[in-house]
């Protein structure tokens, strides 16, 4: 028995390690049940842009998700059947990697996919993330959220370690032709801070804990899929096939 004991211990540890890994790998409840009825309805978008797709507008908001913030930043055609939502942090490197993937998807599926962005700055990890989110919101006040959004991701390596990052953000605002005194005022305003915070609270209510977290028509897309162009494209294709 003593001769076999080490082998038994080793096999036991192997089983526990594999089982533990498999348990951690299991997607959360929301991702294991691909139930479109659970999606936060696209009616959360401003009603003026409500999709003509009846299926997308009749789905009631689940009670548990009643505190999900409305979608503020949305681009794409109103009648697009698919909605990709990103909870992102402008300073998070995987979010920076996701940016060109989503841009490519938007270009390729211009009539079928809309993209929304929610702020979820991980401030304790990324010192400039909060200010970057506010910079995007300050640009939004002047109608240039997406332009600033794209610029922040494309120039992430330039500002992520800057101390302070403010001069760089002002430079981007200047490049975008924003009213600089207003931008400077808005970036520190309570309204803009509250806007970011509302997104964060909405994300937390939906179970978001890290970035990027991507939802496709309300269902969370696993990180490994969302950050791979080919895999995300395959998921979109299968979702479109269901819609047809």
């Amino acid at each position: 028995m003593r001769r076999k004991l080490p082998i038994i211990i080793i096999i036991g540890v192997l089983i526990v390690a594999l089982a533990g890994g498999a348990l951690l790998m299991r997607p959360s409840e929301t991702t294991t049940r691909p139930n479109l009825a659970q999606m936060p309805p696209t009616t959360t978008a401003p009603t003026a842009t409500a999709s003509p797709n009846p299926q997308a507008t009749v789905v009631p908001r689940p009670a548990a998700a009643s505190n999900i913030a409305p979608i503020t930043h949305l681009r794409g055609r109103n009648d697009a059947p698919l909605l990709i939502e990103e909870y992102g942090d402008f300073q998070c490197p995987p979010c920076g990697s996701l940016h060109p993937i989503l841009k490519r998807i938007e270009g390729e599926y211009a009539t079928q996919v809309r993209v929304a962005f929610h702020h979820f700055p991980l401030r304790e990890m990324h010192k400039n993330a909060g200010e970057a989110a506010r910079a995007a919101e300050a640009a939004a006040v002047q109608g240039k959220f997406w332009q600033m959004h794209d610029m922040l991701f494309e120039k992430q390596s330039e500002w992520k370690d800057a101390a302070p990052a403010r001069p760089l953000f002002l430079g981007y605002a200047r490049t975008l032709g924003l009213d600089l005194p207003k931008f400077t005022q808005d970036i520190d305003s309570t309204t803009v801070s509250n806007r970011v915070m509302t997104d964060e609270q909405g994300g937390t209510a939906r179970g978001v804990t890290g970035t990027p977290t991507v939802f496709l028509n309300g269902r969370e897309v696993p990180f490994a899929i969302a950050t791979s162009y080919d895999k995300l494209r395959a998921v979109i294709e299968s979702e479109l096939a269901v819609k047809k």
Partner: protein
Amino acid sequence: MISDDTVNRTGEHEREAAPRLSRLFALAAVLALAGLADAVYLTVEHLTGHSVRCTVTNGCSEVLSSQYATIGGYPLAFFGAVAYFTAFSLATLAAFGSERAGKLFAVLVALMFATSLWLFYLQAFVLHAFCQYCLLSAAITTLLVVIVVVRRATKK
């Protein structure tokens, strides 16, 4: 007579030393187990997770999403998990008296330590960011090296 004394002394020395060596390897197995848990967690986070949250340092996502975090598309942490499991197995076998496993364990730990040094260099001088889970792994590997060294010293 002299020969008998030597045999006796050697015999006594072995009897006293043997349990201590086993305890050292048992400690090494426990440490390797902690390293295995750390590496499994990072592997799973890499495959499914998002930005790993750091609570002590503040460079987890920078380190874990860098080009050095994968080899051939596989997360580096996966290879770490394999290494720690192998180290655990060898340490367990050595704790139960296998000399050969003890030797292989020393070789493996040396390789793991060299890898840890390289990864520490990357964090400190290339990425300028530290991931606490990677530092924990480096600390565990360093302790395994200490165990190997103590064992050697005790054996002599």
